[in-house]
């Protein structure tokens, strides 16, 4: 049965007016704005998200980004947009399905529908100009789409976006997003003045007339919604909104780098990491920092290592393919014990993979990607707030332990936006000036403390410390040493640093009871979704708990003891693993989730895994289903 489009508009209204609209009260509501690339859906969603956070809602936004800059218009795979999930308390992930959609054409809507992104019964506000488009092909596409969407039971409301926007702008592609923002402003009863403030902030570099035009479009949206819509949505807001900041994970990494006192970022453009350097490019120089865009990924690593060698720890930012290219330089930094922070904003792989989409597939490459033994520290922020603090921690660890620290973020954190408590910046976070004191007589550049492997670094400029660091095997004086004892000892000392560091860590906290039937173990950006799923399942009476690892190398202590208190342990990750029941797959040849490999190897516990590579963040409902299916003995 073809979908019957609900058409509303002046004179055709079912009688809705601001006063008589039905109010849907909910603690949790997700909204998507989807469009062709370049129609500003993301900007609309970002402004809506920021205002919602300011008004006291928990917010998580995630961008829907096609891989091309300008994919063909009205294409199913070209959907560009943003999802905003609102809650009455903190929101830690993108949730399950979308309840309300603003779609600028039916093809991008179809794209989202086919990805099962929309809740059954979702309300859709759809640009309806295509239904009567002069081009037969477009009308045929529209009809086919309505047929397909009709099966799903959505409530689709036609909105003459183009027609209304053309009263203000010559090119409606450049105005619909602010009109849509007006619709959202009315539906969610957002404060119009705050929305305008946010618009003005967003377009602060544009002439005032652009801002005014956007205000006018916003008001048209608010007005149209008030005259035509028969529903509103109320997500209760917290009365006490503390001091919050709202940003995405890449912005948080950039600001964290600034707060850590690092002064040089070397990078080569790569999605989805590049926007870190955009933010840095904007602010870093104000702090006296340099963003060096190198000729390639390898050079970016080399420049950062050279800068660290001569002074303060520097950092480089990349994604999977870049991590691969930097491999040899990472080995050099480990071997010469030169501090380096590397941020890997993970995307789908291998090879070029899914450049704009999330995956957690670089864990083992980060740990073991270098030929030879190259121990380094690997940590993974789980939230946008942690992206900020990870950089400060990483810088300190890199300098104290004279080694490489890899920060594993991902595309979910990179483009997700959420509020978090405004950090109180501390001078202690910043690197001090490079030590330029004279080196004591007989001082050695690798004067390893035999217990910890730690040694003092002789930075150029220190009188009496002259030596040549080298990627060749070397002794305490940094002299090339090919003899067996020197190589064994130097390897031990580089490795010892990780054990020494691990001895300072606390065992991870358990979310839920500290024993039970099933323990879910995660790392990185999946924390919010995992914990939400675990809480749902506990609500159903299942004995499930979770723990989330921040440090992957070295692993946090006490895992074996914790694992023994659960009947089953299973990782949940966004990377590939064979399903246990797939053809030819046995328990011996099964290829597992990356954290699961690692945990099995280190704890000798039979750690199972549930992983997916769908090019999107995990949904709490999917994790909850996996929990029920994997509960030892089955769900009660």
């Amino acid at each position, binding site marked *: 049965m073809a979908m019957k489009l609900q058409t509303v508009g002046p004179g055709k209204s079912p009688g809705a007016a601001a006063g008589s609209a039905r109010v849907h009260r909910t603690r949790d509501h997700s909204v998507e704005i989807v469009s062709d690339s370049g129609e500003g859906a993301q900007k609309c969603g970002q402004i809506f998200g*920021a205002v919602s*956070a*300011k008004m006291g809602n928990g917010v998580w936004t995630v961008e829907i980004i096609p891989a091309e800059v300008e994919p063909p218009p009205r294409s199913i795979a070209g959907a560009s947009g943003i999802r905003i999930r609102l809650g009455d308390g903190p929101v830690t992930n993108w949730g399950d399905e979308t309840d309300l959609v603003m779609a600028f054409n039916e093809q991008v809507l179809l794209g989202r529908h086919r990805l099962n992104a929309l809740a059954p019964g979702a309300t859709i506000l759809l640009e309806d100009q295509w239904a009567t488009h002069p081009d037969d092909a477009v009308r045929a596409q529209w009809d086919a789409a309505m047929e397909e969407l009709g099966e799903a039971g959505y409530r689709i409301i036609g909105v003459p976006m183009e027609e209304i926007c053309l009263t203000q702008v010559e090119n409606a592609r450049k105005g619909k997003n602010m009109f849509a923002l007006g619709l959202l402003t009315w539906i969610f009863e957002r404060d119009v003045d705050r929305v305008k403030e946010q618009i003005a*902030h967003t377009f602060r570099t544009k002439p005032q007339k652009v801002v005014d035009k956007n205000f006018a479009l916003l008001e048209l949206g608010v007005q149209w919604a008030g005259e035509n819509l028969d529903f509103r949505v109320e997500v209760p807001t917290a009365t006490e909104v503390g*001091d919050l*900041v*709202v940003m995405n994970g890449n*912005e948080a990494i950039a*600001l964290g780098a600034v*707060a850590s*006192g690092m002064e*040089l970022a*070397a990078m080569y453009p790569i999605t989805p990491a590049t926007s870190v350097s955009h933010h840095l490019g904007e*602010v870093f*120089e*104000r*702090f*006296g920092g*340099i963003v*060096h865009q*190198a*000729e390639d990924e*390898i*050079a*970016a*690593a*080399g*420049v950062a*290592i*050279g*800068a*660290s*060698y*001569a*002074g*303060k720890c*520097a950092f480089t930012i990349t994604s999977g393919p870049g991590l691969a290219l930097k491999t*040899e*330089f990472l*080995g*050099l930094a480990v071997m*010469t014990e030169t501090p380096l922070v590397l941020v890997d904003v993970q995307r789908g792989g291998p090879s070029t993979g899914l450049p704009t989409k999330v995956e957690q597939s670089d864990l083992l490459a980060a740990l073991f990607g270098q030929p030879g033994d190259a121990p380094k520290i690997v940590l993974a922020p789980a939230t946008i707030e942690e992206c900020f603090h990870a950089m400060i921690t990483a810088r300190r660890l890199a300098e104290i332990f004279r080694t490489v620290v890899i920060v594993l973020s991902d595309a979910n954190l990179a483009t997700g936006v959420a*509020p978090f408590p*405004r*950090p109180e*910046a501390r*001078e202690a976070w*910043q690197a001090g000036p490079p030590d330029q004191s004279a080196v004591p007589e007989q001082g050695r550049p690798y004067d390893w403390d035999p217990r910890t492997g730690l040694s003092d670094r*002789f930075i*150029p*400029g220190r009188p*009496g*410390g*002259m030596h*040549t*660091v*080298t*990627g060749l095997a070397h002794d305490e004086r940094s*002299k*090339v040493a090919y003899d067996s004892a020197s190589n064994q000892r130097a390897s031990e000392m580089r490795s010892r640093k990780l054990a020494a560091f691990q001895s300072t860590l606390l065992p991870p906290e358990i979310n839920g009871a500290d024993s039970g039937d099933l323990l879910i173990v995660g790392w990185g950006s999946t924390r919010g979704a995992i914990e939400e799923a675990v809480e749902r399942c506990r609500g159903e009476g299942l004995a499930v708990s979770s723990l989330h690892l921040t440090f992957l190398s070295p692993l946090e202590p006490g895992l074996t003891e914790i694992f023994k208190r659960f009947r089953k342990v299973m990782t949940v990750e966004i990377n590939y693993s064979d399903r246990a029941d797939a053809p030819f797959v046995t328990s011996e040849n099964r290829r597992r989730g990356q954290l699961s490999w690692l945990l099995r190897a280190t704890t000798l516990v039979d750690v199972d895994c549930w992983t997916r590579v769908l090019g999107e963040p995990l949904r709490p409902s999917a994790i909850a289903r996996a929990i029920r299916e994997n509960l030892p003995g089955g769900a009660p």
Partner: protein
Amino acid sequence: MSGSCSVFHLAQEEDDRHFEMGDYEGPVARWCSGCGDHSVLTAVRRLLADEQLQPENTVFVSGIGCSSRFPHYLSTYGFHGIHGRALPLSTGVKLSRPELRVFVVMGDGDCVSIGAAHWIHAIRYNVDMVALLLDNNIYGLTKKQTSPTTPQGYSTNTQPRGSYLPAMNPLEATLGVTNASFVAQTAEWVPAHLFATLKAAYRHRGFSFVRILQRCPHFTADMYGEAVKNPGMVELLVHDQGIVAPEIDAMFEHKRPHDPSDLDEARALAEDMNQIRLGLFFRDESHPRYEETRSLPHHTAADKIRILEEEFDRYAV
């Protein structure tokens, strides 16, 4: 410490120490006897003493290969890196600490082959450092494989019937890159010219590229043939703004006046590979140096906190 390099070539900080060549000496070099690297090392030590460079503020960066062992045989700071990647490391050193004096030592495989991307871009960055290409036309450390500068037809272990391709011309390539600022060629067997060239390269403010013609005593001993014994076969580029080495004037009868500010003539002279030419092909100090372009005001920790708070304000709810 000022970010500007405008005076550091001429005036160092007060230092009542005096350095002799021996003060820059490291362990005994483990190169083969007869290797050109020894002459370069001697000329470099002489330069360091001549310029009274403070060992603790001087950094030698190298890649991988015979010649890249160079920093180990000095008593300055050194970074013996990985194959082909000396230039990114040295660029990082200068961006972080523009006041350090940086020298880069690369072989032909290192610079012209595996590190070619960095070489091209380093010319364009024009960071103030001296880059030495110790070019013996062969991979020596790995035992006689064809390098990009191996002459066509020259037999090696990887191309025993002779190198298939015409040799790459590093001078021509360098002179073709935007922002080239100092390009010279010298030879390991003419020590006075080698030293004078290093001196001019060090004095140049910008990226000084010096190709040093060398022979490998094991694998390319015959490389420059008669030209080594007969200076008459070598053409010396002379100019009062060029490489000035009066002590060899009498030795080389074959001289060509060349104004090093003339880029077109420099390119024409470099392109012609039938004639060995030593001297300064091109110099232009007007190009901005990357580390100065990128030099930024220094902020105290407290300043940074203040600016950070302003940033948080932008994101504040």
